[in-house]
């Protein structure tokens, strides 16, 4: 065991991985922290995130529905995070493009959840999909797909 691992808090490797990713997702990315984004879980090739409802993130104060741009930010963050999960490192990941389909209005005064899946990694580019939902991931508020540029030799030949 390396001297570093002796200082690790008790917990499984999976817990530690989640904690590392959580630090990247929030401390490492200031705007994610400003939005109040939470990393709930990381899975084999993806992650789950949560954006707690806040009045200053709303589009229309009368309806109390989170603004469309917030959904964009959540989906961008979730896809980027999914890529990092698969890379197993906080390598530099830059969004090339992101397409978002708005499927239904978000529920007023409710938090938004996101699930992202990085389904393909190549030497230079990673591809991810995500959905944003209030209650049911199979009935999402929005659906996204993105391509991400990998830098610093982080990609893989497959």
């Amino acid at each position, binding site marked *: 065991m390396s001297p570093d691992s002796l200082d690790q808090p008790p917990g499984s490797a999976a817990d530690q991985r989640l904690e590392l990713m959580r630090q990247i997702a929030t401390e*490492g*990315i*200031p*705007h*994610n922290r*400003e*939005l109040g984004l939470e990393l709930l879980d990381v899975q084999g090739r993806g992650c789950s995130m949560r954006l707690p409802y806040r*009045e*200053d*993130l*709303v*589009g*229309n*104060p009368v309806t109390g529905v*989170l*603004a*469309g*741009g*917030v959904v*964009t*930010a*959540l989906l*961008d*963050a979730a896809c*980027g995070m999914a890529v990092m999960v698969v890379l197993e490192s906080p390598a*530099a990941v*830059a*969004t*090339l*493009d*992101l*397409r*978002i*389909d*708005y499927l*239904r*209005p978000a529920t007023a005064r409710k938090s938004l959840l996101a699930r992202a899946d990085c389904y393909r990694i190549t030497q230079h580019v990673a591809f991810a999909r995500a959905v944003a939902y209030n209650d049911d991931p199979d009935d999402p508020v929005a659906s996204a797909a993105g391509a991400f540029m990998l830098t610093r030799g982080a990609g893989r030949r497959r």
Partner: protein
Amino acid sequence: MARVAQAREAGDPDVLVSSIPYARFLGVTAALDAGQLLGKLSFTPRLIGNPVMPALHGGTVGALLEMTAMLTVLWQVPGVGVPKVINLTIDYLRPAAAEDVLARGTVTKQGRRVVNVFAQAWQRDPSRPIASANAHFLIEPLQDGAADRTG
């Protein structure tokens, strides 16, 4: 709806934008520049995505483009209510420096129900955009009476 009318009467899109909490949170404002709508994202450290470079978070630029595209429809297409975004594709072209961002939209196709808008964002040089977007919006003419509730 009253805010839209107020903004149009005042000839100032920022009357509407300033009533959107998320726009205030991000620091997005709007103005007319030679009759054309210009969106602006004013830099603050809370917008940073990558603190090492530093670069703005892609979601903030995306949000600016989406809002600017929506406002462009509102401003160019007379007599409609607030457009509802159907979809949005954002191309990230260059890293966004830790500075202000400007954006402008163009209506590429105005249908009866759907409007297609192209928007670009830049920082110091309009000929070197940092990002662009294509968006489809659903519109409903204000004279049509009952609002469309199918979402």
